[in-house]
């Protein structure tokens, strides 16, 4: 009985597919970061250590490619789901319940900065705040650009049929700096915004459980909470 009562207090945030897809992306990203930087900074203690742990450069290279395939497969399945959601389920890709960037995100950002400087109260976020949207698009777009430069580095002989060989050097430069940005943001900012934030410490579990308790939703996504209670009130008035 108690469990049922708890369940009723949860608001659904992620479907089973999305909760599952977070695992390959998370594990793949950690693996990609470890093996990739071990390959590039192979002269440092970090590269020597990781290289020794996995058994040499060839293992590092193959693990890096395997993690890349796994992570990209998760992103690709997500894209297939998007198409299915739009075409078969006739779902909405815009609006307050979606990941679509809106004018409200920019207003939220401005108000958030005012809030940091104690000039205003915290902004009331919809279902996905601008921080979460940035996290999402960083992976969605980043996996494609990393994928293209990574494929050029994986099959240089094939790609040099279409482009001069020194584009491989450019691909390496892009791959390296984008990796630095991605790791600096995902390994620090994402960890901060789902683990270290004082209201959420030690961990925000909604991507694993799929739900968020109502009182947390009231604080974290006030606009969505307001919208849901308004809808519930209208339904109550109608019946």
């Amino acid at each position, binding site marked *: 009985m108690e469990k049922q009562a708890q369940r009723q207090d949860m608001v659904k945030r992620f479907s089973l597919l999305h909760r599952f897809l977070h695992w390959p992306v998370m594990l793949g990203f950690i693996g990609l970061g470890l093996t990739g930087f071990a*390959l*590039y900074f*192979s*002269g*440092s*203690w*970090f*590269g*020597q*250590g*990781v*290289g*020794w*742990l996995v058994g*040499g*450069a*060839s293992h*590092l*290279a193959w693990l890096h490619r395997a993690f890349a395939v796994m992570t990209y497969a998760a992103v690709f399945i997500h894209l297939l789901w998007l198409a299915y959601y739009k075409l078969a389920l006739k779902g909405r890709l815009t609006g307050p319940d979606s990941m679509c960037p809106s004018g409200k995100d920019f207003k939220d950002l401005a108000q*958030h*900065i005012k*809030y*940091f*400087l*104690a000039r205003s109260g915290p902004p009331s976020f919809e279902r996905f705040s601008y921080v979460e949207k940035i996290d999402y698009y960083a992976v969605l777009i980043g996996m494609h650009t990393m994928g293209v430069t990574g494929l050029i580095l994986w099959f*240089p*002989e*094939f790609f*040099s*049929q279409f*482009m*001069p*060989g*020194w584009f*491989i*050097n*450019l691909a*390496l*430069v*892009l791959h*390296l*700096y*984008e990796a*630095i*940005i991605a790791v*600096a*943001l995902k390994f*620090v*900012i994402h960890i*901060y*915004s789902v683990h*270290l*934030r*004082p*209201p959420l410490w030690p961990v925000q579990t909604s991507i694993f459980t799929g739900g968020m308790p109502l009182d947390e939703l009231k604080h974290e996504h006030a606009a969505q909470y307001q919208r849901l209670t308004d809808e519930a009130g209208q339904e109550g008035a109608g019946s």
Partner: protein
Amino acid sequence: MSKLPALIYKYCRRTGLGLALLVLMHLPALAGTAELDARGGLAASTWFINQAEFQRSAHCFQGCNGCHAKEDKGIQPAALTPHPDPRSPQYLKQAARRAFDYEYCAKCHSLAVKRYGQGKHAEERQKQAKEPLKPGKFSAPTCAHCHNPHTVIPHQGRIQLGRTQVEVCGSCHQAQKETYLENYHGQAAANLGYGKAALCSDCHGAHTVVSLKKPEAALKACRRCHPAATPAFAQMVIHPSPPQDKDDNEPKAQRVAVIQALAIIMAVIALVTILGFYGHSFLWMLRELHEKIRRR
């Protein structure tokens, strides 16, 4: 309080595991770096030969006379530096010179000497014999510049040999050594010990040392490992160091400029993005901590 021992045990076990992992990760780095001294060659010439080292070297069975005897070995005495008087107090302080007639190496290493004669180092040596050495340029190497005959180690593995090679070649070609170690080939072969990745001599030849500035020569070198390489593939820049003579290699200089410009742009983008997001998160943390403490 009864939970305290269990807590301490749990904490120690976690920290211990972490520390053990940290030590394990450092071990190969600690063990791997000390070995790379210049045993391959290029140590300053001296009359003093460490017999313990010499006895371990590949030439130990030759003894001194195998190479240095004046009689009946066909060496011109004039080519040798006169040996100092062992009874003189200045005996070991006199500078030794590299005056050995390296043609004599051909008695055993005929193929290597023949190949050396066809390479860039020998060509440069002939040029330098005609005109004086330009300032800032190294004198062209002969055998012992790269292979110290008194300490040369026999039966080295490919990676051990390759790591020594990077140091020996790099003692004159410093920029090429650095760029090689920043390239995938150097990272895999020299840093991580991957035997299939190319070492200096795999592209440039061991004794027949060649420059790969000509596209056809470069393509031929690429195709030894990458059979499907196209002429465009060989345009890849392996040593993105500024070429010594710009007119000599104009297309490469332009490519290096573009690559370096892109790296600078990407570095600026990375810095701005990271600082922006870190600042955002830091302010957010301060604000929320402040609220949490005030609410108490």
